[in-house]
């Protein structure tokens, strides 16, 4: 009897751990940003990096539920914004809905960036906005439908995992405009556009910055799983950008071996891998892989005189633990991209197919004075070269 009790107890203790392992393998998450805390059981593991970043100005911080409740009264929009979605069928009322990929709308990553883009549209256009957080991949279509049935005018879906569901909804609801963040759409549907980014260009800029700042001639990249093409694009761009500055540079690039199951949610692995790279002489580390990458940034922050570079959004805001090393971040400007597309939909010049959003380096923040003026000038030059096509990142998408 005693034995079986112990056994049951052990099993009960094991369960949460196993569920955390299995549960956090979020379906085809967005490239480099992990949907933090997709399930409560996964949260403890994610906590270390999931910093309570105080975003002074634009933070929607607070509890999502409260936030929505507070929305209608907050909205300062011109002409009195609608306070609920009961009139969305009305031509004059603009309603914008957002469906997240598996994860939270305040994930400090792509879901949040997209939602901030929608919020900006709320403020500027007087739209009524709402979101649904997706719990499982099987819910994508249904969650889009919830908005569509209420006659929302524009539906934003976040993450390439929703591409198919978005295209199908576009067929079914030809009068609704769909914006798919990180999704490829072939242009056959006039009401569906994919907002995508040249991650290789952002990586190229990060690589150029890293090579310029490296004293040792060795830099590193700690990456999420190579199952995600954006991660590969960041890595290839990073390596080629570094070589453009210093052809002899050594780049230690390491992909997480855990696939979707743990590739973006393993800060311990990120930290260990960053430590190994530093031991091998690396003095600038690029962390591109959700919480895995964040773990690398925080590890580097504990080493004096080493620099780190974040990814996706300005990680100065999202990983304050890394302030002592974070010289910049390779950003995909999702927020302005979403806002622009919403405006385009409202103004009647909605593009179809794919729409390339901007990429770039985040501000240098505290390191603004550390980075030499000639490096900044060189980065501007590269940025211009990437934009006009005179510089090629050397990244060829595999497919």
């Amino acid at each position: 009897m005693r034995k079986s009790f112990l056994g049951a107890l052990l099993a009960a203790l094991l369960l949460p751990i196993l569920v955390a392992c299995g549960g956090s393998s979020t379906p085809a998450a967005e490239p480099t940003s992990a949907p933090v805390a997709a399930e409560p059981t996964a949260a403890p593991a994610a906590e270390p990096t999931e910093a309570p970043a105080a975003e002074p100005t634009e933070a929607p911080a607070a509890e999502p539920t409260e936030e929505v409740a507070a929305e209608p009264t907050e909205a300062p929009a011109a002409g009195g914004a609608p306070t609920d979605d009961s009139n969305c069928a009305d031509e004059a009322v603009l309603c914008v809905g957002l469906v997240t990929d598996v994860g939270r709308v305040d994930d400090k990553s792509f879901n949040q960036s997209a939602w901030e883009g929608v919020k900006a549209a709320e403020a500027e256009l007087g739209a009524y906005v709402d979101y649904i957080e997706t719990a499982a991949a099987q819910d994508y279509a249904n969650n889009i439908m919830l908005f569509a049935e209420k006659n929302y005018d524009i539906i934003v879906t976040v993450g390439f995992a929703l591409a198919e569901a978005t295209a199908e909804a576009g067929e079914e609801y030809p009068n609704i405009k769909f914006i798919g963040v990180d999704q490829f759409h072939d242009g056959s549907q006039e009401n569906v556009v994919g907002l995508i980014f040249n991650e290789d260009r952002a990586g190229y800029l990060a690589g150029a910055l890293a090579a310029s700042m490296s004293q040792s001639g060795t830099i590193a990249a700690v990456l999420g799983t190579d199952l995600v093409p954006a991660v590969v694009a960041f890595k290839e761009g990073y390596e080629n950008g570094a070589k453009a500055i210093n052809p002899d540079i050594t780049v230690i690039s390491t992909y997480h071996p855990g696939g979707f199951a743990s590739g973006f949610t393993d800060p311990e692995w990120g930290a260990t891998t960053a430590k190994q790279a530093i031991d091998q002489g690396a003095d600038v580390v690029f962390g591109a892989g959700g919480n895995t990458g964040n773990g690398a940034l925080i590890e580097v922050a504990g080493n004096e005189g080493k620099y780190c570079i974040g990814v996706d959004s300005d990680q100065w805001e999202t990983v304050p633990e890394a302030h002592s090393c974070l010289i910049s971040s390779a950003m995909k400007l999702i927020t302005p991209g979403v806002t622009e597309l919403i405006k385009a939909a409202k103004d009647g010049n909605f593009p179809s197919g794919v729409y390339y959003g901007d990429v770039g380096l985040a501000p240098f923040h505290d390191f603004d004075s550390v980075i030499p003026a000639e490096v900044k000038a060189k980065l501007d030059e590269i940025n211009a070269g990437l934009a006009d096509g005179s510089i090629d990142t050397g990244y060829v998408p595999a497919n």
Partner: protein
Amino acid sequence: MERVEAQAPKPPNKSNWISSYLFPALYAAIVPVMAVIVALIIGAIIIALSGSNPLVAYKELLIGAVGSPRAIQRTLERATPLIFGGLALTLAFKAGLFNIGAQGQLILGAILAGWIGYIFTDLPAIVHIPLALAIGALVGALYGAIPGFLKAYSGAHEVIVTIMLNYIAGNLTDYLSNGPWKDRARGNVVARTPKIAESAEIPSLGDILPFDISILNNIPLGAVLAGLVAIFVWWLINKSTLGFEMRTVGENPHAAQYAGISVKRITIIAMLLSGLLAGLGGAVETLGVNGRFEPGTNAGLGFNAITIALLARVHPIGVIPAALLIGMMQAGGALMQFNAKVAIEIIDIVQALILFFVAADILIRKMLRMRKSEGGLNLSGGWGGS
């Protein structure tokens, strides 16, 4: 060795159906039902604390789960793999084995069924679907048999082995869906297999019935299959010689050995059948719901199956309501979130609370002043001993 309480289970008395099945079933259901109710009450308190109305939230949850034919279909779709997984766990538990490897067996079944589903394009559905299901089940069975074999012949504990095998299955499916079996359709950048042929898609009941009854039209055939398999598993465990041997091994392997049952053989067969059920569940999920294999979409199913099996008190028929309950919560969660503004995580909290109260059933029994469970869960046959 000092355990004496477990005897070989008695064959059920056939004389009175009501007293031999119905009453025990109702009695056995008290704890899980109470666990669900208590969990829902605590969930309601949490919803209220977060500033929403719990009654509205639960109403929306119910509408989202069973409020329309489409909602019912979604609930059944969610419940189907959970029924298979729950049955897989139940069957293994009966033989004293804890098959944590259901997840790995399930995703291998899912990807193999997806592969059969897309490589054949000109098979009739009547051949294509059974073939894909059979291959999925077969792969699950073989993958489940590995830990059974290791347990039988080297004593390696199935929990440890299956955890390792889950990693192998996860990485193997990642590799296949991003390598040789990747969907090369234009525009696809993600790791996934191509869409299965139409002839491999499991239809709804409405598509095959000669007559038209609207409420049945949306019932996925996979859910019907799951129900039939549950009945079969019940029969297998309770009415067949093999089931008798499995239960005997599960309750006391030493007694079983003494009675002339080959514990090794039963261990392997039980794990093989358990893996078969899990693999079949994965195959049905691919052919009936997802239409292809994509890493991550089946995440956690094998682990939710543990919840289901425990909630069902390790009873094959009990697995059906348990899976339907969890399926309802998952299917209705989105509408609850949308209309009642309740964070979707509340569903996970309620689910975790249910598991907690079922596992720690002594709490519920104290509340109800019930007697100690009779022949309760024996989840730990192989721990330390044997």
